[in-house]
């Protein structure tokens, strides 16, 4: 038996790591990976609560989060490619115009 709070602390740690990466990283691809890390942390807490309450709905939500993450990764990486084509850089400090 593992206390549920351990799982929640691990999930919170992953989420905080994602927030930190989002703040301190300058590479746009790494920032994008930090978002995936945050989504993974949330998924872990969904599954942990589903196990706590013996309910399957938490797992269904994990699938929906995964679908949204996949769609987000596809569109986001396409945007990164488009940004790189016009600016020749991946540094977010140099991407300061919304115009492509």
């Amino acid at each position: 038996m593992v206390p549920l709070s351990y799982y929640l602390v691990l999930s919170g740690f992953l989420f905080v790591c994602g927030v930190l990466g989002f703040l301190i990283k300058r590479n746009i691809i790494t920032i994008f990976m930090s978002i995936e890390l945050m989504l993974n942390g949330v998924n872990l807490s969904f599954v942990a609560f589903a196990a706590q309450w013996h309910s399957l709905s938490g797992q269904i939500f994990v699938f929906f989060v995964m679908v949204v993450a996949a769609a987000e990764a596809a569109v986001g990486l396409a945007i990164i490619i488009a940004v790189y084509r016009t600016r020749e850089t991946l540094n977010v400090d140099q991407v300061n115009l919304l115009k492509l």
Partner: protein
Amino acid sequence: MLHLILFLFFGAICVAGAVNLLVQSHPINSALSLIVVMASLAAEYLLLGAEFVAAVQVIVYAGAIMVLFVITIMLLNAGAEQHTKGSRVAILIGVPGALIGAVLVAWTLLTRGHTGSVAMGALPGSPQDIARLLFHEFLLPFEITSVLILIAIMGAVVLASRPEAIARRHTESHQPDPLPQERQPAPQLVGSGKEH
């Protein structure tokens, strides 16, 4: 006891991968450590009894999405990130703030949160039960996500393929004779008049 040991083992791998993602400066190292995080998270799901979620985690997250990331890093030939003044400000403000938040959450959960404990393999769901739930109660969200995926595919294709940019790069890289159809005026997309 076995559950706790396995949880701590895979949790330690997970934490190490997440910290390594932050520490590394090259994106490919960050991507590989993110794969480690996702694989150990799949092991945690297995410990909770969510076999189907664990399998989907490995296939979709550690497989498909991370392959997309790695291919993008390879395609753009991404090098190590440069640190600027903005990144130092972000570190000065972001690191203490995030650490305070993490300590608060952990303290609240460990001392004040009256949550129970979970047994090994506590989740009852077989893939059959999950499918029944997904295609009966959650049928409408399921269909909506399929539309979302379709729109995402179309958006990715439109955003990532810019024919006039490809033609321009061909002429810039001193290619002697670009193909005729690449010289034709491409359909006007956003920012197509941008010149370097």
